[in-house]
């Protein structure tokens, strides 16, 4: 699919006058300002926050808020929890979504299209429709307040949407490759791991990134399934912090800033893939 997008890139760009810059620069500044204000607030003491005239730059910047904020609660633990959940979610999604996409795109079996169209019904299904039964199920299995409810769905196909994206990508890989391999006696497992997966790296990276961010940023599912502090994700930790330190914005912004940094790093490293992924998800509309 990404091949398709880059192929039709005789892009049009009108002649830009200088007049495009002022509104763009202004809006970009407005969009970035909240981040600046977060960082600025995180570097000042509580007294400066309640000044009637806030200064644009911190007068006596210090990292003391970070030390206080991050040691007040076990943020290291929260970070690790979020990381474990996101990593296992990504792993499960990449493995099982690509397996299923492989089956729906490259293997011929009798009920394939019928099964695929049934499975597709899960694509638009909102989480709130299924969360109550899922909660009851995990509770009966005594698996609530653990990571299983958050990770398990990823190991069962990892979301129909990801299967859909990967399937589109796999369909673009020339058929002769795997047919030749099968004729030579290679099993389908080998075709999958040694031919299809290595050729699909760009699509896998996009799916992996979007899955990671979705898991990392998720708030509703952890809120439902996790109850004790030692299992909290970063987002649950942040909300707990908000409950205990309301109005102490210097600490709150320090904690928020620390939570934002990993996402920023991912953005800087993988911007290109993220944009591609988002354009991909939009184009088929």
């Amino acid at each position, binding site marked *: 699919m990404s091949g398709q997008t880059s192929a039709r890139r*005789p*892009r*049009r*760009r009108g*002649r*830009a006058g200088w007049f*495009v*810059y002022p*509104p*763009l620069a202004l*809006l*970009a500044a407005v969009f970035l300002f*909240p981040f600046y*204000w*977060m960082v600025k607030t995180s570097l000042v003491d509580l007294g400066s926050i309640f000044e009637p005239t*806030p200064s644009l730059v911190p007068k006596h910047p210090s990292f003391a808020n970070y030390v206080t904020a991050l040691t007040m609660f076990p943020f290291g633990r929260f970070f690790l929890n979020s990381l474990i959940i996101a990593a296992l979610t990504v792993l499960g999604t990449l493995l*099982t*979504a690509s*397996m*299923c996409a*492989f089956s*729906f795109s490259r293997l*011929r*079996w009798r009920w*394939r299209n019928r099964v695929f169209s049934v*499975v597709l*019904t*899960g694509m638009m299904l*909102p*989480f*709130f*429709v*299924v*969360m*109550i039964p899922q*909660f009851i199920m995990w509770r009966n299995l005594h698996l609530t307040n653990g990571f299983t409810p958050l990770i398990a*769905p990823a190991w*069962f*196909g990892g979301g129909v949407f990801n*299967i859909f994206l990967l399937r589109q990508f796999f369909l673009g890989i020339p058929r002769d490759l795997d047919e030749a391999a099968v004729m030579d006696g290679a099993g389908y497992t080998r075709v999958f791991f040694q031919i299809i997966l290595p050729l699909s790296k760009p699509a896998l990276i996009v799916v992996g990134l979007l899955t990671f961010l979705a898991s990392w940023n998720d*708030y*509703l599912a952890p809120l*439902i399934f996790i109850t004790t502090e030692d299992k909290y994700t970063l987002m649950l930790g*942040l*909300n707990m912090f908000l*409950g205990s330190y309301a109005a102490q*914005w210097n600490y709150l*912004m320090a904690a*928020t800033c620390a*939570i934002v940094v990993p*996402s*920023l790093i*991912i*953005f800087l490293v993988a*911007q290109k893939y993220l*944009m591609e992924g988002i*354009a991909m*998800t*939009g184009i088929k*509309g």
Partner: protein
Amino acid sequence: MEQHGAIRRKEETAGWLFATPVILGWVIFVAGPVLVTLALSLTDYTVGGTPRLVGLGNYRGFFQSADPSFFASVRATALYGVLSVPACIAVSFFLALLLNTRIRARGLFRAALFLPVIIPLAASSVIWMWLFQPDFGVVNFVIRALGLHGPQWLASERTVVPTMVLMNVWLTGNSIVIFLAALQGVPRHLYEALEVDGGNALHKLVYITLPMVSPTIFFMVITGFINALQAFVQPAIMTSDAYHFGGPGNSSLLYVLFIYREAFRFSKLGGASAAAVLLFVVIAVLTWTFFKMSRSLVYYEGGERT
């Protein structure tokens, strides 16, 4: 020939095996739970209790307004969607048009506009609480500096939902990227033809750009409403605490937060399931209606209407 048949049989088995995860996943996490939600919506059921059949009692309860917070939640969600979807589409389309011109540092501008999307919504909600804090927030400071009196933003029943919508406008990076891709897909020769005929920039926008990206706008309207109806994190972080949800009053009790509160705070699993079914029906009907409408309203290149 016999060897070929053996391969076909092997392929048949492999097909089923490779698709097993999603088939199981569909049963366990999709179809099963949907049926259970439907069944539970007809019962009175608390966590750890046994379900008691009440027929349509839960649904009737909502509409006989046994619980005023239900209607408050419907009203808040409708307002949120009706304000948020057009605002986000208009702003992101405008920004995409600006970005689609021949400018320097295009990637940099795009990155700046996209950045907010990448940040966890829970974290950006906390940032916005601080920016829009009525007494010490920087937004009201600027408004005061201009000699005006800033509103109470999240702290007032009248402005809480519009404030969240304002935040959504800040989160339109996805739409910008999608619009940008659509704008770049508009064939250049159309503009050139119009130029030859003496058309100006406005003509280009109205007669070429808008019709050509109308499928994208249409897609954004659908997904925009579907997402808006499911908004949860903003009110859960910004206007809820351990005892109150979607304040002040119930003015920002968005629908999914209402479902969450009923199910997991009030332990009314039956009622919450009924509420979930209602929203699901609304989303399904919306999707269906929009697709019906698309046939007459949207221009698809090549005349193929899908």
